[in-house]
């Protein structure tokens, strides 16, 4: 029963996305152009070199289509959450018969997965035209899809936590900037972590941010069973951790709500 409830939230949120054609176009055009910029840059960077840090140019470009697709597909659920906290409507929302945080994560994921599919298709076309096909694309496809969904889920859960911070902070946007930038840099959104100096790469690979960008993308472009298992394992570990953090934050928030009367 409970599962069905969240499945419904998820699927309605997904269908709802088809209405927003203009934002769909805007997102996909931005994706196209940002990939073009990356292509222009990396073409010059690679020059005659075959591989840099173990990555061929084909792999690097495909890697970036995957990380960008993960990033651009994410609905900013911390916005509506912090809004509800600020204007007090959260008091009504938490009275409904479902977990508030889980509701937003499901709703966010419903939208995200609808958004990511066109991005992945577009990325496939653009990358194929720009640098040619990715060796092993098809055989890694089912695993790639799973870990990319997992990466989006890690990002979305982080966003839910940021949204809840509105109970304690007037403005949560800066927290999002910081998390987003950590995913950009430490998570390897703009550049595979392997390009980093060894000591930094080792730290970066262990952070949750890497499991929201680097690990899923590199699993697809350089597939191996070990890599896939590490990615899944890391994602499950961090999701459990974040779920715990979100639950604790939420409990503290509700207590605060009761004391202050909303």
């Amino acid at each position: 029963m409970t599962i069905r409830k969240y499945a419904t939230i998820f699927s309605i949120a997904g269908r709802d996305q088809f209405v927003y054609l203009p934002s769909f176009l805007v997102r996909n055009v931005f994706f196209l152009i940002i990939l073009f910029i990356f292509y222009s840059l990396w073409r010059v960077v690679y020059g005659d070199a075959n591989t840099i840090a173990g990555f061929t140019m084909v792999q690097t470009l495909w890697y970036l289509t995957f990380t960008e697709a993960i990033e651009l597909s994410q609905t900013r659920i911390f916005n509506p959450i912090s809004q509800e906290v600020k204007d007090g409507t959260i008091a009504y929302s938490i009275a409904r018969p479902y977990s508030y945080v889980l509701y937003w994560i499901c709703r966010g994921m419903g939208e995200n997965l609808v958004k990511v599919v066109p991005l992945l298709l577009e990325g496939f076309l653009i990358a194929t035209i720009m640098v040619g096909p990715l060796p092993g694309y098809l055989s890694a496809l089912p695993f790639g899809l799973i870990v990319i969904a997992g990466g989006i889920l890690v990002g979305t859960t982080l966003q839910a936590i940021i949204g809840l911070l509105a109970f304690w902070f007037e403005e949560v946007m800066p927290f999002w900037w910081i998390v987003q930038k950590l995913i950009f840099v430490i998570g390897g959104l703009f550049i595979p972590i392997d390009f980093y100096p060894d000591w930094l790469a080792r730290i970066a690979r262990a952070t949750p941010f890497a499991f929201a960008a680097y690990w899923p993308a590199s699993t697809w472009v350089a597939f191996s069973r070990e890599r896939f298992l590490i990615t899944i394992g890391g994602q499950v570990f961090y999701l459990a951790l974040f779920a715990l953090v979100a639950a604790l934050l939420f409990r503290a928030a509700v207590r605060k709500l009761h004391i202050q009367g909303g």
Partner: protein
Amino acid sequence: MSEPTRQRTNLLRLALHYFRFNLSAGMAYSTSFLIQVFGMALNNGAFIIFWLVLFDRIGAEIAGYGFTDVMFLWALAASGFGLSVVVFGNTHQLSRIIYTGELDVYLLQPRPVLLNVLLSRTVVSGWGDLLYGLSLFVITQPMSLTGWLLFLLFTILMALVVTAVRVFYHCLTFFLGNAEGFAQLAGELVISFMLYPGSIFRGPAAWLLHSLIPAAFVAYIPARIFASFDPGTLLIVLAADAVIVAAAFLMFRLGLRRYESGNLIGSRM
């Protein structure tokens, strides 16, 4: 004083008044103000790591640009964008102001409409961009008086052109219905292109960067002038930037004739 002169000084007074007004409104929530300013500065700082890593991996130059040159682009873009949103903070709202009919309020005031709209709000995080841009310039660029003067000039030009480009695309709302998403995209693209060495773009992309997404005239060419000063090129930049600003004003004027004051209800683009 003659009539036009009086108008201009009054406009400057109004700009200053808006500026003080918005700043004090922003300061009223001082923690939030500081979090936003430093959050944005930190936010921008993250990208330095990307470039450090890249240059560290592959050597001294990417298409003729060294690390210092790329940092100049970043310093210029951040301070120019920051100045733009601090002074003309209402730009990103322009589409909404047009399609909801909020423009009425500005049309009823005895001031130049477009400037009145743009000046009347500020974006607090812009101070963070400005702070970051200036610091980056001080840290990464060689110090000289001409250097500073050029940087300040280019920052102001960048602010004007970034604003103008966004105004231009937001004005499509007059003609097509809500073009907000499109205008935001155009604004983001101009900024995105500015942050990469201009010389990596060839062919049609390079043309685009000299026209519809005029990153060349506010970032790449100024960077070249900064590296080696050339008065002729500077004149070209000034002329091109003037054309871009004029185009935005013209677009707004034409749009105003089509303005429907919120009667466009139900149509969205």
